[in-house]
Structures are given as C-alpha cells and as structure tokens.
C-alpha cells in the first residue's frame, strides 16, 4: 500500500558557470592587494625556500617582498637602466638579474652590492637563470646569443649564436644540470646541452615566443607566443602534444602550480587562464584590470602575484582553510546504548523481525498530510525556510494550489502575516524559477485583500512595492526581447553555405538562432 509522498521540492540547475572543485579551489583567495611599482613588471620570482619572499623586477629596481608585506623588505637599485628577470637560485641565497646595459649581476639576498658582474652581452639581457647544479648561470638577450657563465670564476663558458632574433625567455631543466631552453622572437624554441657545441633541438612555435616552461619531469615543454600556448613532448623529439588557443591577445607568461597539475597562462587580454595538465582544458580563469606581463605562484599555491603593464602588482593570498568541525557536535548517545543489540549476529534458524523504517517528515509535510493547508503555509513562512530555501516555500504554495486550497490558506490573515507574504512575493516573483507560482499567489492575495486596501499603511506599502517590482521586471523583459530581435537580424545576415538552402525551410528565427549559435 502506498505511503504518503512528501512534497517534491524541485531543485533547479544553477545557471551560468558550473561549480567544480577547481572553481572552488581557485576562488579561495582573498581580495587582491595592489602595489604600485615604478614601471611595467617584467618578472616575478618566488624564493624556493621559506618564508617564500618574492623578487619583483620592474623598471630599474628589484624589490623583494615578504609574504604579507605591502612594502618591499629589500630593494636592489644599482641599475642604470631597466633590470630584467631577477631570479632566485634553488637555495634561495643568490639572485641574478640581467639589465638593459648588457651586464648580468649576481646578488647575495642578504647583501646589497653585487657579488659578481658578468659582462659579455652586447645588448640588453632579458633572460638569466641558474642551472640546476647551482654553479652556472645561463643568459640570453637582444644580441641573439645564449651564453653560459661560471659563477666561481665569473667567466663565460660557452656562447651559442643560433637564434636569429631577440631571445626573450628561457628556462633551465630541473632534472638535468646541463640542459636549458630559450625561446626567441624568431618563432623558435631551442634546447641546449652545455656539453654540446650546438643546440640539441629546435622547436618551431609559429609565433614570436614570449615564454617557455619545462615541466618538473623535464619531459614536456610549454611555449607561449602569439595567442597560442603549445605543449611539446621533448622526449619524442619535440612533437606537438596540444595547442591551446584560449586567449585573444598575446600570451606573455606561463607558470605551473605547486603540484604540477595545473598550468597558468597570463596574457595581454587581461586574463589568467588555468588549465588542467591532464585534459588541457580551461578549468578556471581570472580577470585583471590591465594587460598582464608576469605571473608567479608561490609554493603551496598560497599566493598569486601578477604584474601588469601599468606597473601594478596584484597580490592574492589564499583564505585560511575553514575548519568544519567548529560546529558544536550533537551529543551522541552513550556507546553502550548505541551498540546494544547491534552486535548480535542472528543464527541461521532465527527468524528476524525487521523493524519498520520510520520515515521522518518535515513539518509542512506532516501538516499537508493531515490537510491543514493554512498551518502548512505558516510553517514554510518561518524565517529559516523563507529566507534560505525559498524553493521549499514556493513548492508548498504550488502543492496547495494543486490541491485547490491555496485560496483558503491565504485567506484570513492579519496585517503582519499579509505584510510577510507580500514581502516574500515581491522579492521572489522576479525569480524565473518561482514566477509562475508566485504570480498566482499574488493574484489570489490581491483578490482576497482588495476590500481591505487602504486600511493599513504597511500593507499598502507592500502592495506598491510589489507593483514596482513587477513593473521593473516587465521593462526588463521588453529590453531582453529587443536584444533578441537584434540578435536575430544579426544572425539572419550571416550568409553561410548551409544557411543558404535552409532559408526556405526555416521561417522561424528561433530555430535558426539556435542552429547558428551551435555552429559557432
């Protein structure tokens, strides 16, 4: 025999962006801190050791910021012209930077004056970095040359002149101390082995390369240039794995998160996109005020720092993890009572009498079960339900309407209750999920309480509010229809091969709209 069926509260799918784990994760940052620098920020590098300070290269200065400091804790300003690419060594003690005048300077993080200065480049050096053995430095610049320097002696070990245009990016391999790559405006990425006289591999990116990145495993290489981010398999001889085109302006910087599962790319189109490195799909995207030049993510993804063309440094810190166990634990029954009888294993010949499952009904369901419509409506107008789960309130109203008792449930209420009802209706009637039901409710309320209009100022005000809300919504709908009409004409002017012979068959614009938008 059937039992009472509770009221179905319809869950509606969230429109727009779908909430995934990624969105939750990447949204877990506080509002950004903005720091003004002297010029465009061309490089941000985090110290690999705690407390994870970061060096920001902008104009002729290198600022070092602490984790939460808004003022630089240290500044290197011994540059005559612009400094480039200040990079930490893996132990976090040394910092190397290139400069406009062509010299490379090596600083001790705790000191002020440069420890070494490497001269040899004839043009500005845009790329410098430590190889993973920590004793050698590679560099490249506008003189098309890529050089390797020995720190202890301060001399050049080898120089490659293979690029045919400015070299603007480079990256050492984490697994092999002899390997580094450089990307150039001549559309190529070259992989160098310091034991060899020439480059080991050349990858044709197709656009001027703005940024390169090697995966920690050393097997995959990511290059960014033009609107494209391309991933190459180094071990397969530089085979293109995937080409991503998600930005609509030049991609300027690349970065991996601490786990290596997500790839971030910043672009002049003011967006940072986050890709999953398994599916290479965009899982999240950040929006910034101006074009992005540099991007860095601290270990453990604690901080995202983005440098922009107007010299603003945008720092986002991660929100502390919310402890969920804070809520007061409900007192459980004592262990003994809980366990009582549950440990008994029935024997084979035992006849088990199953206890009927007790179904717990919500309060409004109980009232609806006993046909108490008015009280059921009261129950769903209680503050917690009305405010946080309006869909329950609306579902019960709909159920009452279905039973034909909505009118009697709404009738016979005092000023306070009418006020409450009207507030609810005026606020929610514009929600497309509830419109159809609440319009009926509003209709019935005005019908019932028409004779008493004018007797209470509070109720009158609510009626006016409702009228205003509905008027506004109607205007809004009209505007939307206008937009739809405009779009229809736009789509209609699209002349396609397929649409050409479809024209006669489709007189309705809507059908065509959907089809063309699907093709896009």
């Amino acid at each position, binding site marked *: *025999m*059937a*039992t*009472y*069926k*509770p*009221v*179905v509260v*319809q869950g509606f799918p969230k429109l727009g962006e*779908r909430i*995934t*784990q990624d969105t939750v994760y990447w949204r877990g940052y506080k509002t950004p801190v903005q720091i003004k620098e002297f010029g465009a920020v061309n490089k941000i590098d985090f110290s690999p050791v705690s407390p994870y300070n970061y060096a920001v290269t902008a104009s002729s200065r290198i600022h070092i910021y602490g984790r939460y400091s808004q003022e630089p804790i240290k500044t290197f300003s011994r540059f005559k012209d612009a400094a480039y690419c200040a990079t930490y060594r893996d132990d976090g003690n040394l910092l190397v930077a290139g400069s406009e005048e062509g010299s490379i300077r090596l600083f001790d993080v705790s000191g002020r004056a440069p420890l070494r200065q490497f001269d040899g480049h004839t043009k500005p050096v845009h790329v410098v970095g430590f190889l993973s053995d920590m004793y050698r430095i590679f560099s490249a610049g506008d003189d098309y040359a890529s050089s390797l320097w020995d720190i202890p002696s301060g001399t050049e070990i080898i120089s490659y002149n293979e690029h045919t245009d400015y070299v603007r990016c480079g990256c050492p391999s984490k697994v092999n101390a002899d390997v580094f790559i450089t990307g150039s405006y001549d559309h190529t990425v070259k992989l160098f082995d310091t034991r060899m006289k020439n480059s080991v591999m050349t990858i044709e990116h197709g656009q001027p390369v703005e940024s390169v990145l090697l995966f920690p495993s050393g097997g995959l290489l990511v290059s960014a240039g033009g609107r494209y981010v391309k991933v190459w398999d180094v071990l397969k001889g530089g085979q293109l794995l995937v080409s991503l085109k998600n930005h609509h302006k030049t991609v300027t910087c690349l970065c991996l998160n601490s786990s290596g599962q997500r790839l971030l790319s910043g672009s002049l189109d003011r967006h940072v996109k986050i890709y999953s490195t398994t599916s290479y799909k965009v899982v999240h995207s950040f929006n910034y005020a101006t074009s992005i030049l540099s991007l860095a993510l601290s270990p453990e993804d604690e901080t995202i720092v983005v440098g922009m063309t107007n010299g603003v440094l945008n720092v986002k810190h991660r929100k502390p993890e919310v402890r969920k166990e804070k809520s007061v634990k409900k007192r459980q029954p004592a262990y003994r009572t809980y366990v009582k009888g549950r440990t008994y294993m029935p024997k084979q010949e035992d006849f088990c009498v199953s206890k009927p499952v007790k179904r717990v009904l919500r309060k409004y369901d109980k009232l*609806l*079960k006993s046909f108490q419509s008015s009280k059921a409506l009261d129950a769903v107008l209680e503050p917690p339900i009305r405010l946080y789960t309006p869909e329950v309130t609306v579902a019960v109203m709909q*159920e009452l309407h*279905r*039973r*034909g008792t909505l009118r009697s449930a709404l009738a016979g209420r005092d000023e306070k209750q009418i006020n409450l009802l009207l507030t609810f209706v005026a606020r929610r009637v514009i929600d497309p999920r509830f419109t*159809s039901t609440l319009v009926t409710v509003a209709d019935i309320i005005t019908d019932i309480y028409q004779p008493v209009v004018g007797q209470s100022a509070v109720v009158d005000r609510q009626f006016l509010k409702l009228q205003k809300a509905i008027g506004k919504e109607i205007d809004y709908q009209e505007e939307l229809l206008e937009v739809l009409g405009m779009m229809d004409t736009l789509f209609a002017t699209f002349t396609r091969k*397929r649409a050409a*012979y*479809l024209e006669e*068959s*489709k*007189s*309705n614009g*809507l*059908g065509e709209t*959907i*089809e063309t938008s*699907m093709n896009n």
Partner: protein
Amino acid sequence: MVAPAKLRVVRCGGGNHHGARAVFSADSKYLLCASGDFVKVYSVATEETLRLIGGHADRVTGIQLNPHNHMQLYSSSLDGTIKLWDFMDGIAIKTFTVGSVLVALYAPPAFEDSVFVVAAKNGNRGPFQLISVKLTKAAGQVVEAKELSVILSGVDSSPKCIAFGREGEYVVSVKQSDLNIYFFRKKLAQRFSLRPSKVIEGSNQFSCVACHPTEDCIATGHSNGKIRIWRNFHHKKEYTYSTLHWHHDTVRDLAYSVEGTYLLSGGIEAVLVVWPNESDRQKDFLPRLGSPIEHISMAADGSQCCTLHTDNRITLIDSNLRFSKSIQGLIKSPNIKTGLVVDPRTKALVLNGEPGHLQFYCLQTDQQLFSLDIVQREYIHQAGLHQADLVKVAFGAQGRWLATVEEREEVTDPELQLKLWFFNEETQSFKLNTRINTPHEDHITDMCFREVEELEDDSLILVTTGKDRVFKVWLMVEDTDPEAQQRVSWSCDFVGSYHNYQATNCCFSEDGSLLAVSFEETVTVWDSVTWDLKCTFCYPPGKIRNMCFGRLTCSKYLIGSTDCGFLCCWNLLSCALEWSAHINVLILQPDPLSEYIAAVSWLPEESSLFVFKPNETQPVYIQRNLCRLKIQLAAFVPRDEPEMVSSEKYLWLRRSQLFFLTETQELITLSTKSLEERLTLSSKQLAVEESLPVTPFSLLLGKHRHHQSQEDTDLGKRVVQKQHEQESPAVKELLHTPAHVLPSASFLCTIFINSLLISKENKSAEEVVADEVEMENEQAEDDSEEERDVAEMEQDDPSPVESLGELPCKLSKSQERELRKIRKMDYSWIAAF
C-alpha cells in the same frame, strides 16, 4: 491439419469488475467477482485467477453463494436469467429465466428455495422492483421461473440500495430521500423520508444501506458523506437515528462485520473507515488504498474483507485492518492518454495505471507486473481537482530508456514535465535521470525515440512535438564534471518548425535516418543527422491523424491517415503519392517485426480492422465489425516464438499478436486458436487447483509426493500403516489410561497383540482408496493365478475370474456375495460334466 479457422475476437482482460459486490467462498479461500459477462474466481492465497465462469449473455449484475450449499453460486445478469453454478468446476447447474432485466441479486439464508432480484418492471427499463423468485426444483437445465412475487416496487437500480435485515425479517430499500422497510412476518411496509437539505437540494440523499446482522439496526450512507444509524424503526413515530460523519463526499458502500461489532464505510477518498460500536470516537482508518472504493464485502468467517475499487482493483484487508493483498489485472484509468506501448524488455503492455503511475500489465498472466510512480506526488482523491497525470510514454534503446510526459491542466498554461528514466540493472527498476520542466510551451502531442539497433546508446535521440508549433530534438550529453552523480543527462539539441503550424505526430524511419513530423495538414521529412528539411507531403484537406513509416521491404513508404477519412501512402524515393484509400482510420499501427500495418477504422456502431502491406494495393486481411464499441488503442505485441499459422491469410499474426483496447477498457485480441485449445489451458489450472497454494514449487513437490505414495503402496507398507492407524484408538486408549485404573497386563496382552495383527479380511477390497485401485487389481490377479495353479479346470473360463478381480471396486457388498454364489454354482455345474 484443420481447415483455416476464422479469426476469433477474444476478450483477454480489462472490462468492468465493479458490477457487484465480491463474494468470498465459505472457507475464504476463493474470492468470486463479477467481471463483465463473466464471474471470476480468484485464489485468495495466490491472487491468481483460477477460473472464468462464463455463460451469461450480458453483464453479470449480482453474485451470491447459495446459502444452503456453499459450493454453489447464484448469479444474475442483465440478460434476464439467474444461473446456479458449481463454481469449483465452473459448471452451470441450472438456469432460471425471469424475463426482464435483472440488476441485483440477494440470497438471504433465511429463505428456503427463493432468491430476490431487482428487476425492471416492463422488459428492459422503467421503474425497478424487488421480486422474490421461487426456484423450482423442476428437472431440466433451463427452467422458467414462474412464481414471482413483488415485494417492493420503485426501488433503486443500484444493488447497494437494498439490504436484508437479521434472519430475513425485513428488507430495507433506499431511493433518493426515501427509506422503505418491508417486514416479511407482518407483511407491512414502513416508509421514512428525509427532510430535504437546506443547503443544496438533494445533497443528503441516500446512497447505500446496510443492515446489522444481529440487531434491528440499519446503517445508511448519504451523498453528503454522512452515515446514519437507524434504530427502533418498527414504529412509524418513535424511530431514532444517530449520525456519523467523516467522509467529505458520497458514502459509496457500507458493510457490517460478521458479528456486527463494527461498521466499514468507503467512498471516493480511497480510505476505508472503521466505526466500532457505531460510535464516532474510536474510528480507525486505512488510507491511501489507491482509488475510490466502490464495494466492500466481508468474508463469512470475518477473517478478512475486500474492497472493490473503481479502477478494477481488489484489495484484501485482514481483520487487523492491515492491507494484505491486492488483486489487480488491467487497472482501469479514467482516460488513457499514453496509448498502448509495449515494453521491449518484459513484453508487457504499458499504459496509464492509477493516477500518476505507469502500469506494466502482463498479458500472459492477466496480472499487473508493477506500477511505476512517475508523478511522485501525493494524489488527492477529490472530485473536480486537476492533478498531474501521465500523457505520453516512449521506450528507447530496447527498454533501457523511458521517456514520460506528465501535465497538469491549468486555466492559464499547462504545467508540463518531461522525464527521462534509465533502467537500473541492479535494482531492476527505472531510475529518474533527467527532468525537464516545461519542455514545450503547450501540450505535447507526440514523442518518439530513434531506435537504431546497431548504434550505441549515445546516439539515442528523442523527438517531441508540441502544440506550440515546434518539434524539439533531445540528445544525451555526457557530463564532463567527474563529481556529478550521473554520467549523462538530456538536453535540447534542435528546434524545428514549419510555417507556424502545430506539430502533431512524429516518427522515425526504421534505419533512423529520416524523421517525419506532421504539421496539421503537411508531413515534413527531415534528415536526422543535419536536421535539414528534405521534403513535404500533403493530402488536403484533412489534417494528419496518424503516420508511420513502412518497415523491412516497405521501408520506402510513408503511410498517413487524415481526419477527413483518407489513408495515403507516399513513396519516399519518388516523393509522390503511391496510393490512397477512403477509410476513416482511427488507429494506424505498424507491426515492429514485419511489414504489415494494421488500421482500425470507425463507422458509427462498428469498428473494422484492415491489415495491409504498403507495397500491395489489396489489404491482406479485413475484419468487418470487429467490435461494437469504439476501439481506442491498438498495439502489436511480439510473440516469444513465431506461431505456426495454418493459413496464408493469417501470416501477419505469425510474429506478433494484435491487441485492442476498447472504450470501456476491455482488452481484446485476435486469435487463430479454436476455443478448445484455449480451454485446455484453463483445465490445466484446474488440476493443480486442489492443492493450494499453487506455485511451481508446490507442483514439483506434489509430483514427488505422488511418486512416493505409489512406491509405498507397492511395498505394502502403506497397508500396514493403515492398520496401525485403524487400530490406534485401542492402543491409544491403552496407553493414555492411567496405569492404576488399568486391568492386569496379562489381561491386556492378548488384546494388544491382537490389535497388531493384520486380519485377513482386511486384504479384500472393502475400503478402496482411489489411488490403491491399481494395487487391488494386482492382488486380484495374483489370486486368480493361484487359483489357476491349483485347479486346472478353471482354464475354461479364466476371463470371468479376471473380470471378477476387477469388479469389486465397483460392486457393492451384496452384489459381491451374489457373484460368489454364482461362482460356486458354476463349479458344481462344471463338475457335473
């Protein structure tokens, strides 16, 4: 074999069960129920239909057990006869013809050899009267009942409006607002009238009546939901009554318990109310019985009661007011909107069941397989309430997907929901996958899946057509989010329309490459890959009513029927009309397994069936006057194995069987089998019926037991056991008497030992148990053999001796003795030679 028999129209389910109150057999093992022209016998234990008793020419209106013989049943019918049946064997014992239409039957035990019927005064219609019919004991199958005497005239035609008082002292009849009591002993009639209701005219009229079994007390139900208990009605003035009120609508039936300690009432609310001691206080309820209660009947031993519902369901309720069983065949739904759909998985018929549910009806067993709750909302049994109900159903991908549309009529705009269900193999039931609110802005007119066998599930396409002048194509989309609960969901892929006409029908071609959608007068054909309009067909001025593609060899044809009475066939290759015929086709049903198409036409008072192949101009089969009622729906149900069809003419019935549903929701089919073949099936049931409950297992066990018993008799063990059992009283007495009152052991010894001996006489065939006959025969044969050995002279006539051996089981003792004498005489006679 035999010459091709004519196709017979066979009723196989549905109909109307609630013509009369159901009757329990005396031992409460069987339930008898009037069902259309038949009486059905159900087993209470197994809910199976054991027997269908048929013989009446019209609807059975009343059934009553013969109060003087519990194995007999009286039934009355609209054909003007009362029949007496042996319901266990299904044999009509006698037929009494009364002449006029009988609408109710009563057989109170207090009256010897007479029953009461409510009959029309003059022939077929007109005022009804309660008549006492004396059942003559005259010989002959058909007897005319002559001794009729009118008890009350001007009674209501409903069988619930008359009740007999305790020990048949009085009879009560209610009609509108009058209560008539006739006292048999005093031959006096008493009349009480209700004061007309002040609020609404006639709202307090009587609807049913019941009499207390032991006291002078009458309970009447009223159409305003009140129940009145009348007492002291022997006097015109001093009568009293009390009122009980719970029902909000008409009390449909009342019944007293066997001892009269409580009263049961039921109505449209589908709640059985128990009123103990006729008081308003401790009333008890059994709610949510599914559908309005029409009749309530009690078992004679009071162990259970049953309620008959308006949707043909029978609910058995035990004495603790707990739901125990429900017997349900084809559930009658007020309006079948879903059509007849065949579930590809179970081959069950699928259609609207109880409100908001989808019933899966098994054709073989005439039982409901299960009922799927689609709407999942509490159904309020109240007249005039628009509640959501199922309107369209479609199965896809061999029954793995089910699409349902439910709608609720609203004044402004209908509330529509499209639901897609996936068959869960683990739970063996359908699980809701996607729910789409308002898939169309107006009513959905048709829905179909693209059924392509070779392709994967992912290519499944659903098309819905709506009155909002569009058709929509729904596709399965995979959910990219790994955290989502389900892998796939459905979403709209394409919206098509044609000149702003209402879309009415849709169907896919057999290979799934083409979709045909009819827009009022025009049929449009679309490519199912690119959704391009390929061509249009039109046959003015009629609007397209039905449409289907040909199958197999006829897949290039598209058949459509219009509402102005034309059946057209278009060739898809030449895009031209192939042929058309002037038939008013109501239903067009293609056979899924062959190229045949069945069309059912309707002229006033006559439905005809045409079966044709689209590529042939002549129909394969025509059956005029299939049924007098309008046929609402039809469906081809694939057979499990192709049937052997003797005639070329019925080749179209080889792969599938055609079922029809009439206006009155009777399920009929066409059968090539003769009546005998069908009857043998039911006689099989009969054989097993004796050892209830009948389950396959019990059948198996029964066989085994039978074997064993035979073995026992062969060994003669059984005989010894029999002796033991026979002698056991003496031994028992001996054993159970206290030792101190027993005589000495030496005295008892001889008695005891004698009791253990097997006496010789007992071996003769005196008490023959039916299954020991064989053994007896063997013994007799043995005897004769011995005799042959001893006396050679008997060789002359061995046959009489043998026949003697066989005879005893049939002859009485005295005859036997005579035979023996003759035998002795024979000897002497032979010796003389």
